[in-house]
């Protein structure tokens, strides 16, 4: 996609900035990335937890995402073990969500009169989050540029109201819009900047370092122990009484517990990359993470953000 229009963005970061501005203008709270290692933007509590319960919500954010098995030492033109997703979650899903989405493509320089945008069936399921939804992958000229999902269930809970979720794979989308063939060649900041930086300048070395660590060095015994500890801590947090003995307030620690769930999930991904999880064990580990996610979801719906309201005693 190399047509030269004045509207065309010039760098990776410009595309991100335009998305931020666009969704801010549509009323989303522009949030920051979650400060933990996650496999996808969906794991951010702003999506996973906030899609639960009855309260309305609208958020957009960039989320660095890690998929250790996708590491290619920065050599593969499209695959990275660390990459960025842009995530939008709106609850309840507005009737014009498709139009809002198409507007975001125009905002980042996709000329709707020249391109072929299609909504192709793709149902989303996250076995680790106990979540699923129906929707599409969005194609632009045969290229998958986003995932579009109406959440039906999260953490084993039916979603009421239903959230609409949009996920953009930022590197791939940006490479397409900027006409770049290898991710490492993509301009990260403006090519005419005083110090122009490519994606490779920023991330080539880290891709190498993490690929080596993910595949060959990460201490699996330590990781296995961390997994168990995270699992135990999650359960211990949720086992606490709802009323905090110190403040006397009702404080359910859904978010700290969910942090442990995120942690367990990422450790599982690392163990998977290290090749120490057999096919049969795999399902068991996924089941364990799902159990944590479900418990966190159970806890979150009892909190205020999850729609709980303490009705005054009659």
């Amino acid at each position, binding site marked *: *996609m190399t*047509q030269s229009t004045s509207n065309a963005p010039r760098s990776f970061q410009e595309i991100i900035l335009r998305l931020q501005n666009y969704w801010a203008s549509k009323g989303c709270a522009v949030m920051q990335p979650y400060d933990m290692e996650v496999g996808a933007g969906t794991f951010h509590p702003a999506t996973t937890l906030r899609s639960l319960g009855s309260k309305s919500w609208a958020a957009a954010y960039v989320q660095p995402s890690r998929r250790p098995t996708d590491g290619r030492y920065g050599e593969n*033109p*499209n695959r990275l073990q660390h990459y960025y997703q842009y995530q939008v979650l709106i609850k*309840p*899903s*507005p*009737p014009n969500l*498709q139009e809002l989405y198409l507007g975001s493509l125009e905002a980042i320089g996709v000329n*709707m*009169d*020249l*391109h*072929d*945008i*299609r*909504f*192709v*069936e793709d*149902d989303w399921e996250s076995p680790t989050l106990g979540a699923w*939804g*129906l*929707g*599409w992958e969005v194609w*632009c*000229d*045969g*290229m998958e540029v986003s995932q579009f999902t*109406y959440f*039906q269930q999260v953490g084993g809970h039916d*979603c*009421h*109201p*239903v959230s*609409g979720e949009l996920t953009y794979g930022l590197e791939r989308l940006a490479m*397409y819009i900027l006409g770049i063939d290898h991710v490492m060649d993509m301009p990260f900041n403006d090519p005419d900047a005083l110090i122009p930086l490519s994606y490779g300048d920023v991330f080539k070395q880290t891709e190498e370092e993490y690929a080596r660590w993910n595949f060959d060095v990460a201490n699996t015994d330590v990781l296995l122990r961390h997994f168990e500890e995270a699992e135990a801590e999650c359960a211990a947090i949720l086992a606490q009484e709802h009323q905090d003995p110190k403040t006397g307030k009702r404080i359910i620690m859904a978010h700290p517990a969910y942090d442990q769930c995120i942690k367990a999930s990422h450790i599982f991904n690392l163990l998977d990359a290290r090749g120490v999880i*057999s*096919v*049969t064990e795999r399902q068991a580990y996924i089941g364990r993470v799902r159990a944590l996610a479900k418990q966190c979801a159970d806890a979150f719906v009892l909190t205020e953000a999850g729609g709980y309201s303490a009705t005054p005693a009659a």
Partner: protein
Amino acid sequence: MPDLLIELFSEEIPARMQARAAEDLKKRVTDGLVEAGLTYAGAAAFSTPRRLTLALEGLLAESPTVREERKGPKVGAPDKAIEGFLRGAGLTRDQLEERDTPKGAVYFAAIEKPGRPAAAIIAEVLEDTVRNFPWSKSMRWGTGSLRWVRPLHSILCVLSDEAGATVVDLDIDGIKSGNTTHGHRFMAPDEIIVTGFEDYAAKLKRAHVVLDTAERQQAIWQEATNQAFARGLEVVEDKGLLAEVAGLVEWPVVLLGDIDAEFLELPPEVLQTSMKEHQKFFSVRNPKTGRIEGFVTVANRETADQGATILAGNQKVLSARLADAKFFWANDLRVAKSETGMAAWAEKLSNVTFHNKLGTQAARIDRIAALAREIAPVVGADADLAEQAARVAKADLSSEMVYEFPELQGLMGRYYAEAAGLPQEVANACEMHYSPLGPSDDVPTEPVSVAVALADKLDTLTGFWAIDEKPTGSKDPYALRRAALGVIRLVLENDVRMSLFAVLKEQANEVAEGVAGVENQLFIQSGQAEELEAEFIKNMGVEDILAYLNEKDELEEGDRKEFEQGISFLERISDLLTFFHDRLKVFLRDQGIRHDVIDACIAMEGNDDLTLLVKRARALEDFLKSEDGENLLQGFKRANNILSQAEEKDGVEYSYGADVKFAEDDSEKALFAALAASEGAISTAIEAEDFAAAMGGTAALRAPVDAFFEAVQVNSDNEVVRRNRLNLLSQIRKVCGQVADLSRIEA
């Protein structure tokens, strides 16, 4: 008479669901209308990615008035009874009619249900249809609880006649019906007001929507083949893909592109699969070289640059995909050509679970290899080659290409085996051992392929039988019916002669030994095994065998449990053999062989040799179609009936052999002679497996049997003569019984 137009306009409906949904809409709505008395002259349903449409012609303007007469209580019956009747009928007493009947005066009620206007009925039926639509997967959205395949945006429902068009009012969870729709999402998104179907279809076309799926398909195919033809190329036909692509567009625009030269060396199947699975492209072939050189993509819009940007984008995505495929291909070839070759992949399969109760792929391959070796001589294959082939046939499951494109399993195996310099028969077996996959799929004929194909399927079947995972009803997750049919076709089409029972038993033992949890080992004490099997194969029940053996006092109390396990094991294999027979019946029925003919042959010894069994069945089918056969069957049935009745009555079996010296009538003597003559001829023919000749031999009995029954009364007053004649009938049964169990043939 009015016409009705309904359109349900939604976000994009999955392509694979559209055709079915249009049919469901038609069926649900028309069934509902007809049930309410609203008949119609014609109906047509349509679907696009964003709409389901139903057009009905010649609908009744209102449902007819229905009159019903009900008989009530007698005049003078208790008030309670009369009041109850009135309540049920919704009438008052003065509306009842008294009528004289033979039982006295009785009240009658005439109930009239007035007709209702079409609009009221349509609104009800459509609401019910939308609320209970049979989507295989549906969803909620926003704050609502209505379910649809994707968010439903509007309902168009217009009833039109000479006087004009009116909207049928309905409101489903806030979605109000109207007379508007929208055109193409990008090319003509504005609102369109419609008055009826013709207006609707015409306006949609102007708004860049082709309503009819068949028309879209045809347009795509025609344009694609035209563009290809203009460049001396041809489009590879793919009806499934055409249907899917037509479900992804409302305004199809066909674009033909070239595959970058650096990818043309990839196997054509890889190109085709990658393009189809990932991009939904058609492959375009050069008929001169047979190579795939181009692709056809179908866009959903026209553009000012004639699709140049869209085509360039698609081409770029394809190149990225094919770069992956090329990378896999190069890596895989490097492994295949290395010193270890495909063995390195085969080794990896010891980490891959086939089924958690049946162990790893590697363990399975060991079993298949051993069995392929055993089967090899039977199918005329070299045992070493068969084993070698079985050992590499599934190695490609570890290759990168098959990991990416599972549907290329087998085929990649062949390419890699060829690259590894393995014998051609081995390479062919890698591909062919999965065949036949469907009833119309070609059956392998090369002996090595046949051996591995049989071994693979037989191991699968015995394995799943051993762990009791049999198909039930419509559930057959491991495609075991297909595997059994595959075995049947491999055996029959290659004229393979083997005892299936022996092979299954042996293989089930292998499974049992190798797999923990499969406990039904074969614990038959030596010396009993053969006897037991002989009994078993004659379909003797387990209890009968146990009783028989108990009687013979051959079992110690302690051995009994083990023995029963052995029986249960044999019972499973016998059950598997029955499964084969059931599949065979279905297969032969499709070829016009009657089920009772097959049953008559399955009842014979050696029924686990499928080739023999089918040979017999075909001969019997032909024979029974002949006049001789038909008449002989009558004679046989008559003899069998008389004999069975007598045996039941007398409590004895007349099988001692008749003596010609007690024969009184000439026809009786002639029958003796005929039986003596044919018995020899028939057994010789049977031994030579010449069933047609054997049946011909029985045909020679037809005239003497007919003459005998004509002239002779079997149940003679003379007990000696009677018994002798019964024994003679028994002889008929025995001689005829050599060819098949004719008692199972239905009249």
